[in-house]
C-alpha cells in the first residue's frame, strides 16, 4: 500500500497504539540487551543505542544520540510471543466417566508488535506457512497471529552479522506490515517516512502524520540501500541445491568438531519451530496437563526412536539443522528457512558462522 507520510518522532505511533487498545510489545533495553517486552511508556524506547554483533558476541553501545533505531535484532525473536517457548496444549482429567480432554482458554489480547525488522517480518511469514497456512494449523498460533498488528522498522543500519540482503528479506520490507517506519538521516532532520500497509495500520496513523515529500521517500530508500550495501556476508546463491549434493562432505565433520550442540542457534533463530511435549500431573494423579515446549534438532534425544537416536553424531545434527534451514525448507515450504538475521552467528558461543560454513561446503566437490 503506497501511502507514505512523514513524522518527526516515533513515539506518537506508540501512544496511538496504546490508546487504540492494543497491548504494545516494543524494544526495551534490559540486562544488557534489547528485548521485545510490553511497553506502557513511549519514552522507554532505547534511543541512541546500537548493537555490536559479531560471531559469538553481542554488545550494546552508545550510538548517535539523535537516532532511535540503529540497533538491529534482539537476541529473542517475535516467535517468543507468537509461539511461546512453553504453552499448555490441553488438560486431561480422569473421573468415573472416563477421560476427558480440554483446551485452555485463549489468553491473547489484540497486540501490536512495534519494531519488527524486515528479516523478522519474513521470519513470521515463514512460520505462518508452517503453523497457520499448512494442512494442519496450530490454532493458538493462528489466533495470536490474526490478532497481531505489525509495525515494521526498516533498517537504516546493518550489524556485521546481518545478511538479509542476500536472502531477499531486507533491509526494506515491501509488504506484510500494518505500518512501516523508516528513520531518515540528519539531512532530513531525523524524520520518519511512514507507510501504512493495511486499513488497521492506516486507522492508527490517522491525524498523526503529514504528507511525505518525494525527498523523504528518496531519503528512506537511500537509508535502506546503504544498510544493504554495508553487509559483508552473502549467502551463496545456489546453496539449496548445493548442500543437497554435498551431504557426505568431510567438512561437516569439521564444523561438528567446533559445534557444542548447545542449541543456542535454534533458540535464537526466528524461524526454527521444533517443539517437544511434556506431561505434568497433579498430586491426585487424576489431572494432567500437556505442554508444548521448544525443542532443538541439536538435542541428542530429538530423533530418539525405541532403541536409540537416529542422529547420534554431532555431525549429523549440525547437518540436519543447516540443510533443513537452507535446503530442504525449500522442498517443504517453497522458500529458504533462513532470513539472514544473523542471530545464529552472534549467539553461537564458539562463533560458528552459517554463511562461512555454507561457503566452505559449496567449495567442496559434490558427493
Amino acid at each position, binding site marked *: 500500500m503506497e501511502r507514505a507520510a512523514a513524522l518527526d518522532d516515533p513515539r506518537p505511533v506508540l501512544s496511538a497504539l496504546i490508546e487504540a487498545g492494543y497491548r504494545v510489545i516494543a524494544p526495551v533495553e534490559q540486562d544488557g540487551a534489547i528485548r521485545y517486552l510490553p511497553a506502557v511508556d513511549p519514552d522507554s524506547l532505547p534511543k541512541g543505542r546500537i548493537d555490536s554483533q559479531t560471531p559469538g558476541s553481542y554488545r550494546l553501545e552508545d550510538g548517535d544520540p539523535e537516532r532511535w533505531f540503529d540497533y538491529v535484532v534482539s537476541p529473542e525473536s517475535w516467535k517468543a510471543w507468537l509461539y511461546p517457548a512453553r504453552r499448555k496444549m490441553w488438560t486431561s482429567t480422569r473421573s468415573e466417566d*472416563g477421560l476427558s*480432554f480440554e483446551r485452555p482458554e485463549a489468553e491473547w489480547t489484540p497486540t501490536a508488535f512495534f519494531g519488527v525488522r524486515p528479516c523478522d517480518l519474513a521470519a513470521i511469514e515463514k512460520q505462518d506457512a508452517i503453523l497457520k497456512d499448512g494442512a494442519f494449523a496450530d490454532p493458538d498460533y493462528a489466533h495470536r497471529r490474526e490478532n497481531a498488528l505489525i509495525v515494521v522498522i526498516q533498517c537504516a543500519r546493518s550489524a556485521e552479522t546481518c545478511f538479509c540482503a542476500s536472502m531477499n528479506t531486507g533491509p526494506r520490507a515491501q509488504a506484510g506490515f500494518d505500518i512501516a517506519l523508516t528513520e531518515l538521516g540528519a539531512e532530513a532532520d531525523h524524520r520518519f517516512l511512514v507507510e501504512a500497509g493495511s486499513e488497521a495500520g492506516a486507522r492508527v496513523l490517522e491525524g498523526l502524520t503529514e504528507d511525505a515529500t518525494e525527498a523523504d521517500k528518496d531519503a528512506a530508500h537511500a537509508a535502506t540501500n546503504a544498510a544493504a550495501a554495508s553487509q559483508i556476508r552473502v549467502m551463496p546463491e545456489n546453496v539449496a541445491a548445493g548442500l543437497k549434493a554435498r551431504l557426505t562432505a568431510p567438512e561437516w565433520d569439521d564444523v561438528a568438531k567446533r559445534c557444542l550442540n548447545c542449541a543456542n542457534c535454534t533458540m535464537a533463530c526466528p524461524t526454527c519451530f521444533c517443539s517437544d511435549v511434556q506431561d505434568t500431573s497433579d498430586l491426585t494423579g487424576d489431572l494432567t496437563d500437556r505442554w508444548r515446549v521448544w525443542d532443538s534438532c541439536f538435542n541428542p534425544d530429538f530423533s530418539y526412536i525405541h532403541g536409540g537416536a537416529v542422529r547420534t553424531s554431532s555431525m549429523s545434527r549440525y547437518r540436519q539443522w543447516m540443510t533443513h534451514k537452507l535446503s530442504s525448507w525449500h522442498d517443504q515450504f517453497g522458500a529458504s528457512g533462513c532470513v539472514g538475521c544473523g542471530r545464529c552467528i552472534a549467539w553461537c558461543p564458539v562463533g560458528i558462522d552459517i554463511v562461512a560454513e555454507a561457503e566452505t561446503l559449496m567449495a567442496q566437490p559434490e558427493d
Partner: protein
Amino acid sequence: MRDSAEPHTAIADPMLPIAMRVSEAWRELDDVVSLRLVTKDGAPFAFAPGQFNMLYAFGVGEAAISISGDPARTGELLHTIRDVGAVSGALTRLKAGDEVGVRGPFGSSWPVDSEHDRHLLFVAGGLGLAPLRPAIYRALATRHRFASITLIMGARSPRDLLYPYQLAGWTASHALRLNITVDHAGPEWTGSVGVVTTEFARALAGIDPAKVSAYLCGPEIMMRFGAMGLADMGVSTERMWLSMERSMKCAIGLCGHCQFGPDFVCKDGPVFRHDEIARRLTLKEI
C-alpha cells in the same frame, strides 16, 4: 451405534485427543499386546490402510501406533503394541474398560485399490505385519481384482510370529500365498530359516516381476535390502512402498521430530514410494 454419527476422519481437532474405550485387550507375544478400541459415542472411526494414531496413556504420554485392523470395520480400532518404553509399556498394560486418548488417523496409506490386476507382494518383518494387515484386509476384500496375493513374513523365531492364528487361517482358506522365514528355529520347524530376501525367488516363481506391486514393512534395514533385492529381480521401484519410522510428537508436521530429508514422516509418510526415498535410505543419520 448411532446412525447419524460421522466417521472420525475429518480430524475435528488434530491436536486434542478423543477418549476411546478399550473393549478388549489380549497378549499376542511375550511383549506384544493388541487393543480393541471403540468410540464412546459409537461414532465410527474410518482410516486408510497404513495410517497411524497417536495413543495417549493417561498421565504417561503419547506414542505413534499404526492401525492394524480391517479398514472396513469402522466400528472399532485395532492396535498392536510392543512394550519398548514408558508409554508403550503403559498401553500394553491397559485392560478392557480402561480409556485411552486417541488422535488421528494420520499419515499416508498403502495404495491397494490403484494396483488392480497386479501381483501384490507383502513383505513383513517382525511387527511389520501390524501396519500391513489393513492393506491385506483391503486386498482380500476384493481378492478377484488382483492377479495374486503373496505375504512373506520374516521373524526372529517361529514363536515370535505375529498373528499366527490369522496366518493359519489365510493359508487354510487359500486367501493368499504365505512364505515364512525366521532367523533361527528348533529342529521341529519345517519352514525356512534365513532373511526375507532369500524367499523372493520362490515367492515370485512364475510371476512377471514387472507386474508386481510390493509393500514392505519392518526394520529399516530389512526394507532397504528387501527393496534392493526386489529391484534386482525386476520389480519397479515405482511399484514398491515402505513404511518409515521416526520420532513423532505432534503427528501433523509441526514439531519437526520426524524430519527425514525433505519430508516429515508423520504427514508426508509414513508410507513412501521407494524411488522417492531410495537415496535417503543409504545416507547415515539422515
